């Protein structure tokens, strides 16, 4: 299991190239990558604040829960903080399991929890200044299914 909270970019391909390999019991690997999107067409950058110390602990706990619940062979979470340009990769999760259903479910579970339970806050930088991204009811609702 690898958990990393970092300012630096990461290489999705390099992270996935060895993930879940070298075991005869892994049949399915799912990855999710979150990318800085610009819905308004006017955003300059996205800034991610986090809570050092708590962030790593919260993500590790969430990932361990996923590994146990879906009997994962491995799990990976990388989440960046700091200032990111549009199109940059914000974070990724990956899950390795025997069957595809477990790998998909565990990855969705991780994402739903990271969205609402890991201490990150997004701020948009635009032409009119900055504004904090508000939490969505749909993200909170997504947790209910687990």
């Amino acid at each position, binding site marked *: 299991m690898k958990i990393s909270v970092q300012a630096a970019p990461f290489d999705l391909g390099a992270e996935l190239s060895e993930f879940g390999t070298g075991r005869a019991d892994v049949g399915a690997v799912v990855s999710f990558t979150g990318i800085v999107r610009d819905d308004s067409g006017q955003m300059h950058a996205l800034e991610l604040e986090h*809570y050092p110390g*708590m962030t790593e602990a*919260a993500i590790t706990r969430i990932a361990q829960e996923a590994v146990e619940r879906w009997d994962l062979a491995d799990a990976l979470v990388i989440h960046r903080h700091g200032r990111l340009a549009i199109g940059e990769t914000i974070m990724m999760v990956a899950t390795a399991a025997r069957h595809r259903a477990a790998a998909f479910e565990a990855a969705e579970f991780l994402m739903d929890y990271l*969205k609402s339970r890991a201490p*990150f*806050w997004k*701020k948009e930088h635009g032409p009119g200044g900055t504004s904090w991204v*508000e*939490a969505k009811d749909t993200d909170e609702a997504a947790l209910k299914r687990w």
Partner: protein
Amino acid sequence: MIDVLYFAWVRERIGLPRETLETQAATVADLVTELKAREPRYEAAFADLSALRVALDQELSEFDAPLKGVREVAFFPPMTGG
């Protein structure tokens, strides 16, 4: 003595990321009442508790939780990671 941390717009409204306080507050809610009485910027930051979350020693908690034994309290808006 207790460390109090602020994140995102809570940090911006109060104007500092962390401070160390002497408090007799029994619960998080009591601490919030103390803070609001200090200055208008605290009053503004804590005006709507439903828009805030709290962590005690880096674990998500509730506003009615006791502070006994807690070394670090953090206030922040709902998270927006991922």
